[in-house]
Each structure stands twice: as C-alpha cells, then as structure tokens.
C-alpha cells in the first residue's frame, strides 16, 4: 500500500518550457539517458573497440610497410587513423535504428511520443544520444592510434572541432538508420540493410585511400557520400593536412539536417 508520505509536488503540474528552449532540453534528456545506460553496462564500449584496433594494428601496419597507397608523404597509419574514427563511429550510428525498433516494440518509444516533445525534438535528441556513443568511440580510437605512434594534434580547439564533426556525422548516419527503420519496421530487415550499406559507404569514401586513386565511377559516388567529408574534416583537424574544412562542415550540417527531417517524418509510422 501507499505510505502516507507527502506528495504535494505531484499535485502541481510543471511549468512548460516553450519555443526554442524545448529542443536543447530534450536533447539533454536523451543524452543523459544514453550516458546512464553506458554507466550501468560498459560491455559495448569494450567490444566496440576491438574492430578499429584491428584495422589500425593489422591493416594499418601492413599497408604502412608496403607503401602502395599515395598518402601525400605521411605514414599510412597516420593517414588511416581519421578514416577509422569516421568508419567505426558510422558503424555504431548505422545500427541505431535497431535500438529505436526495440524501443518501439517495448513501448519505450510509444511513451516518449506521448510526452510534450515534438517529433523533430525527439529525433534530434536520439541523434545526439547516438552521437554520445560515437564520441566515446572516437576518443577510444584516438587513444589507440596515439599508442601506435600516430602523431596527431592535441590542440584543444581542433579536438573540439573533431567532436563536432563526429557528432554531426553520427547524427546523419543514425537518422539514416531511423529513416530506414521507419520504412522497413522490423529489426531483421534493418539488420540486413544496415549490413548491405555499411561496406559500400566505407569503400566508396576516402577512409582507406584517397579519392584520386579511385576509378571515376567510384569517385562520383564518394562525392555524394557524407562519410568522405567527415574523413576529410577529421584529417584536416587531426593531422593538419590540406582539406576543405568549410565545405566539409557545410555538407555535414546539411546532411544532419536532412537526416533529422527525414527521420522525423517517418517516426509516426513507428508509432502505429
């Protein structure tokens, strides 16, 4: 039975936030939840570190020795490290839709949809919550790369730029995933599609090799691949090699905005 405890606070509804204040409040709420979950169960953080470590350790070290990829004079391992940051954070984000479908089936999402949270705010919140995981992943990969002797910048301003780039990239890929989830509606189908698109996104980007080494048709694909811009920005920021940072940021902002719009539009389908 209920105790006779005070519940005076529960008799007065909270004062609603209005206007622009809603969005940052919801984004914070979603990110806090993501961090709390990670605090209770860190398994994912450890297992997620295995793949990028192998890419750098095996693929990176080998190709550094055989020197077949034109990197513009820097060691291949250095060239590869930003690519692996982008790739491994994309892998996390691209399966974020699975979590959304799980939340839908379990009723968690349903309940969030009945809170005073506009769909766009909910999707933006989820996109940045996915970004929280990606950011932690990025830190892990940077540390692994540093251990392997990659010489990267420790300039705090540039590292802040890296965080923004990773957040935007992961916002786009997680929203792409939620959009697909909104279309296919089941975990199995999303899993299949996720598997099918990650490798093409990865190989049709400049993560492993410069676009100048690609055949023409692949180069065209890489031009419309947001991952290429993410990698370019990360290389510019971390290694200080020439890159088109303004263009990269514009593309990543635009991609994230398009992703959030598309995912918000399809979120209603997941509510039905």
């Amino acid at each position, binding site marked *: 039975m*209920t105790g006779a405890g005070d519940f005076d606070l*529960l008799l007065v*509804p909270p004062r609603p936030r209005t206007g622009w204040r809603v969005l940052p409040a919801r984004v914070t709420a979603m990110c806090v*939840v993501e961090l709390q979950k990670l605090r209770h169960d860190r398994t994912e953080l450890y297992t997620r570190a295995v793949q990028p470590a192998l890419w750098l350790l095996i693929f990176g070290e080998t190709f550094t020795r055989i020197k077949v990829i034109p990197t513009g004079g820097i060691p291949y391992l250095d060239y590869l490290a930003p690519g692996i940051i982008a790739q491994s954070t994309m892998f996390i984000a691209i399966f974020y839709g699975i979590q959304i479908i799980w939340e839908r089936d379990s*009723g968690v999402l*349903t309940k969030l949809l009945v*809170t005073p949270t506009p769909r766009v705010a909910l999707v933006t919140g989820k996109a940045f919550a996915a970004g929280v995981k990606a950011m932690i992943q990025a830190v892990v990969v940077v540390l692994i790369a540093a251990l392997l002797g990659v010489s990267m910048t420790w300039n705090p301003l540039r590292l802040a730029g890296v965080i923004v780039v990773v957040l935007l990239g992961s916002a786009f890929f997680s929203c792409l995933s939620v959009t697909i989830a909104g279309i296919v509606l089941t975990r199995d189908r999303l899993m299949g599609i996720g598997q099918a698109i990650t490798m093409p996104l990865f190989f049709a980007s400049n993560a492993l090799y410069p676009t100048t080494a690609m055949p023409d048709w692949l180069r065209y694909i890489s031009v419309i691949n947001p991952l290429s811009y993410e990698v370019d920005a990360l290389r510019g920021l971390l290694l200080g090699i020439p890159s088109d940072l303004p263009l990269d940021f514009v593309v990543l902002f635009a991609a994230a905005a398009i992703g959030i719009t598309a995912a918000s539009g399809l979120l209603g389908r997941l509510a039905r």
Partner: protein
Amino acid sequence: MRDDTPAVSCTGLSYSFGQTKAVDGLDLTVVSGEVFGLLGPNGAGKTTAIRCVTTLLPVPSGMVKVFGYDAATEQMAVRRLLGYVPQQLSADGGLTGRENVSLFARVFDVSRRERAARVGQALEVVGLADAADRLAATYSGGMVRRLELAQALVSSPRLLMLDEPTIGLDPIARTSVWEHILAVRAATGMTVLVTTHYMDEADQYCDRIALMHHGRVRALGTPEQLTDDLRARLGDGSSPTLEDVFRDVAGSGLNEGGGEFRDVRRTRNTASRVG
C-alpha cells in the same frame, strides 16, 4: 478552470488499419474525476481508441477532445495533461527505477530545482522508494507496472490512461497495482481511463464502464446499472454478472475473430515479460 469540461470526449471516432475497421463510430464521454473502464475482448478496438486519445494515431480534428483540447490540432496541450501507461512493459530495464522516472520529469519540463524531490515523491507514492536505485531489469512484473505508474505521475497529469495495466500479473500484484491507482486518484482527484478485459476488475474498481465490441460502445453505465438492467430484462430471478452482460451485448461469436495476430502476439509478449 474548465471543470465541467469532460476529461475525454470522442465523437464518431473511426480508425482503420487498411481494410480493418478497428474503431467504428465510437461515441464516448469520460467525466472529469471518474475512473472509467473501457472493456472488451481482444480486437474490440480498446487499444486503438486509447491510441487515438493519446495522439499516437492521427485523427481528424473535432473527433477527440481531452479537457476541451483537440487531439488533432492541439497535440502538445493534450500530451501535457496525459499520463500514459501502454500495454507493453515500457520501463527501460537498462536504467534504474529513479532514472526511468527522472527521464519523464525531464521531458515534461520539471525544473532542475524540483526534479529530485518530485521524482522521489513519485517513487514513494508507488512504494518503490527502497528499490529506486536498482536496475528496472531486476524488478518483478508488478514492480515494473508501479514504476510505470510513477513515470506517468511525475508530471501531475489530469488524465491517467492505462492500457491493460494488470495483464499477466498474479492476483496479488493486480490488487497492489489497483490499490496504488486508487490511492493516487483519491489524493489528486485525477481522471482515470483504463482498458481491461478482466470483468471482475472493472466491476470492483471502475465508477463507470463502457463495453466495446467491434469498434463501438455497446453498453454504458455503472457496473450496477448494467447488471440491474440485464436482470430486469431477463426477469427470471437470476443475478447476472458483468460477464453475462457482456455476452448479452456482444451476442454469440464472442471468441471468434476476436483479436488479430498482432494483438495476440503483443499480449502474449507482455504476459511473458511480466513472468
């Protein structure tokens, strides 16, 4: 404020999934302050009706109003008045009880100054203060339901909507969930709209009930009214139960075609997770 405004009013509400008419011309008024039970077998349209009221399903304007706010055009205003507990177990097992409630305090704009105290009170009310810092994954089915109740209560809703709150629970947990619902309602005066297919619960705990079948309300009144009416009509000295009223209203074929695959699967999933 608008105290004579009905908590919920549905006027000619219809909703179809493809060819299936889940709700078919539903008229319903829930008076402010009452415990209203929506009864019916699987597939009667209860959950769909609830989802229309909660703004989860899109409805044309004018059909559904919550305390006078239109569910189609004033969604945010409607949602601020609602505390919703869906049929599935919707607490997040990867978070503690306190974190689960705290999330809903945040998304309902509870100020930071008040948050911890308010979350604490919500957990206290449902009797989970001691278990608040355990992961929800370790809770029993009845505890999860009470946690969900706390999640709904933390925003001080005027209308509490519960979709099959006791499905799959053992009798003791069922009683406990209902006792908490009624205690909260007594203390806050909030309106409660609940769906169930347990006739005994409706009989015992609801002020008024509506019997739904094939997407419409087939009978409406207090449990006594409904059984009295049937007794008068039968006139054979028997004392019918709500279940008899329901059989009478729904006619034969009560168990045929009732409940689509998806409904049944969801119900079973919930039941198995409650354990």
